[in-house]
């Protein structure tokens, strides 16, 4: 088991707790209470609290402990929040259909469906992908719902092609339908969804264990006839990224990838799993503050270095955001390039001519 080789105990615990937790019958965890205590905070930050609750709920001493009670509460909260979001989604998609707007649900409940119980996966906002020409209409529908007292927290995307690596028309043509709380919603096709999950994981520097569980669940629960070529795409960089994340899910979390083309993939670069683990080990996920982070003023040499350190991009997101490959070459060049691009963005953002509405999502070549 790869976890045994890790020499960072709390993260190794986290990995052990999360490995296989997306499956129908994950084995119970037989830990000491202190082990669970030590990993509670990163576990909560990982988004996998309810998944791990399922592994400890039959262990009397663990489930009765304070840490166990926290995980139990996470499970209860998930149940309620998912129920609430199902209601919101059902209303939202009914309204969109009335207005003849076609939207695709990304992440959230569309991914939760890959788990034995969708309530095991926490939900945040509703990520809705619509065509550019219907973006304004969709915004109106959401605003109307809010006026009627249904404030669905929708993150509306119309340039998600940069995330999904395909146009809205292509995504729509290959989309599937999913019953969510009695409503039928459109979701990405299995191949597009897996690619999207991998790219999303990388763009956020692999910051949450939950996102790798999503990838593992999507790989293990892929439908018969899954088209790997379609999933990996034709662009070499994207193929490298998607294959690397799936390989990471196999190496780190024990996802079953032996029957996939990824099993033949060359070895992962050492820095990649190490970076992911260090992200998980930190209490928060991701270390990028983004160009919107306030910069101290005046910006002297010391404050400049401090500000730079705080904004220094992690090697994973820096690599994909500038279109590099995840390989054994040094990452510094990618980090410098991405830091420079962000600094330029920051400079223009401060310019009086800057139009915030033109802010584009991260670039994927």
């Amino acid at each position: 088991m790869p976890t045994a080789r890790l020499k960072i105990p709390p993260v190794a615990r986290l990995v052990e707790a999360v490995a296989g937790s997306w499956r129908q019958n994950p084995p119970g965890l037989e830990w000491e209470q202190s082990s669970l205590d030590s990993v509670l905070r990163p576990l909560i930050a990982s988004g996998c609290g309810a998944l791990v609750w399922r592994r400890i709920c039959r262990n009397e001493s663990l489930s009765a402990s304070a840490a166990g009670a926290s995980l139990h509460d996470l499970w209860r909260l998930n149940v309620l929040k998912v129920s609430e979001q199902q209601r919101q989604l059902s209303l939202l998609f009914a309204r969109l259909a009335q207005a003849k707007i076609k939207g695709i649900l990304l992440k959230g409940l569309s991914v939760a469906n890959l788990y034995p119980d969708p309530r095991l996966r926490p939900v945040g906002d509703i990520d809705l992908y619509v065509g550019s020409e219907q973006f304004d209409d969709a915004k109106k529908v959401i605003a109307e719902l809010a006026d009627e007292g249904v404030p669905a927290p929708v993150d509306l995307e119309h340039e998600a092609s940069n995330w999904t690596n395909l146009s809205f028309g292509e995504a729509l043509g290959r989309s599937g339908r999913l019953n969510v709380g009695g409503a039928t919603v459109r979701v990405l096709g299995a191949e597009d969804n897996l690619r999207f999950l991998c790219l999303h994981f990388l763009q956020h520097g692999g910051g949450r264990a939950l996102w790798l569980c999503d990838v593992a669940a999507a790989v293990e629960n892929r439908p018969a006839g899954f088209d790997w070529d379609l999933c990996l795409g034709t662009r070499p960089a994207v193929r490298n990224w998607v294959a690397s994340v799936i390989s990471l899910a196999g190496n780190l979390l024990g996802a079953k990838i032996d029957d996939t083309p990824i099993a033949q993939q060359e070895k992962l670069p050492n820095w990649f799993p190490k970076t992911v683990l260090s992200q998980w080990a930190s209490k928060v996920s991701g270390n990028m503050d983004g160009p919107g982070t306030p910069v101290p003023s005046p910006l002297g040499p010391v404050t400049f270095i401090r500000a730079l350190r705080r904004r220094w991009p992690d090697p994973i997101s820096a690599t994909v955001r500038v279109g590099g490959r995840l390989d054994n070459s040094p990452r510094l060049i990618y980090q410098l390039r991405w830091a420079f691009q962000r600094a330029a963005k920051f400079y223009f953002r401060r310019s009086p001519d800057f139009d915030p509405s033109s802010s584009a999502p991260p670039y994927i070549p």
Partner: protein
Amino acid sequence: VKNDRQQTILIDAARPLARKDGLVIEELDGETLIYDTERDKAHCLNSAAAQIWRHCDGRHTLADIRDDFADDMPIEVAQEVVSDCVLRLSRARLLEEDSLPSKGNLVLSRRNLLRKIGIGAASAAIVLPLVTSIVAPTPAAAASCGSYSCHAPHFTCPFFGGCICNRGGRCVPFG
């Protein structure tokens, strides 16, 4: 003491009414989970508390509810227990505000209540109504996400690594 008695009389005559609007209710493993969407708070009722809450239909008085509940315990114990539970439901805003004319200082601490009715903590967890708030941190560990604005869609929010900036300029939990 006089005040207590007056309050108790008032509550006895009251017809508490369970809230319906703005609540998401789910049954799970013998518990009733309630999410108050207006206040963004979640509560957990054990089966005894859920039974009392369901009896709060605006028609039954508190005395009626107590009588129903007294099948399994002496009437004076039931009085304490039901009053305590209804007041806790009211404090959790799970009752319509006007339906319980008197509230305030009558809620005993759990320990004092157990002492008063002479029951151990282990048995209490099973037979006594329990209304608890679910206070676990969200998986994003980012309870403060929603109150912050941001300017960089798709980037991690400043100072809150568990939150991401959405297109509306609000920090939301990763999902």
